[in-house]
């Protein structure tokens, strides 16, 4: 599992390879907060290569979204598979996040 941070113009894209769960959520949180501290404000998390997310993973996304919004930015999501969409629907977090079908759509939409 790994989190890869890339820049697409003024958007910071984070690819989640593998799982986003209790054992690695802090790693993602720190990477994003480091980018926020550097002045980045637009974030897109791409789940194309993600296996599954647990409640801790969902929670860290909520926490980061709140912090980034407080700084005048936004954290959006892209490329959720059917399983991940189900988790966001179950927890009603699909109403909290802007979710793009694809990475390109998410980038263009920002």
């Amino acid at each position, binding site marked *: 599992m790994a989190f890869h941070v890339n820049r697409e113009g003024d958007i910071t894209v984070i690819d989640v390879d593998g799982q986003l*769960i209790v054992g690695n959520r802090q790693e993602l949180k720190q990477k994003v907060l480091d980018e926020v501290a550097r002045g980045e404000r637009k974030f897109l998390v791409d789940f194309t290569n993600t296996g599954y997310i647990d409640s801790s993973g969902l929670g860290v996304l909520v926490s980061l979204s709140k912090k980034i919004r407080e700084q005048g930015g936004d954290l959006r999501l892209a490329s959720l598979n059917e399983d991940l969409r189900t988790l966001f629907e179950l927890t009603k977090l699909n109403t909290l996040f802007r979710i793009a079908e694809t990475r390109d759509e998410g980038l263009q939409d920002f």
Partner: protein
Amino acid sequence: MERQLVFDLPNELDCIEEAVAFVMRRCAQCEVVARRLRLNFRVSLTEALANAMIYGNGSDPTKRVRVEIRIENGAIQARVTDEGQGFDPEVVPDPTLPFLPQGEGGRGLFLMRRLMDEVRYNDRGNSVTLVLRLDDDRGLQNGVSA
């Protein structure tokens, strides 16, 4: 998989991903319910292990978590037991209620209850049993609508 699989884990969060993957590999023959195993069971087992390590064992690295997986009576059953004092699952609020803050935590037990066919605790509250019926290939249809 064999009809029973029992192992102990150290109280380390980094062990959860591999432990869940290990159980999933042993369940690989259950293709008819692949999605329910891949999503419902995998996420719920992760939640149960995390709850046991963090809340049950209080993140104490000297404690352990026991995992018991059984397939019987057309269902897969996972029992996760920690060494803690136990808790009352009824006091955990529903995180989707509108008056609750959209906080970072509090969704684990909710997800387990929604994803599994049955979630039950022992009287002490330090052992949770998750049950997923294997004769049900509806995916998550029972979980999404409510």
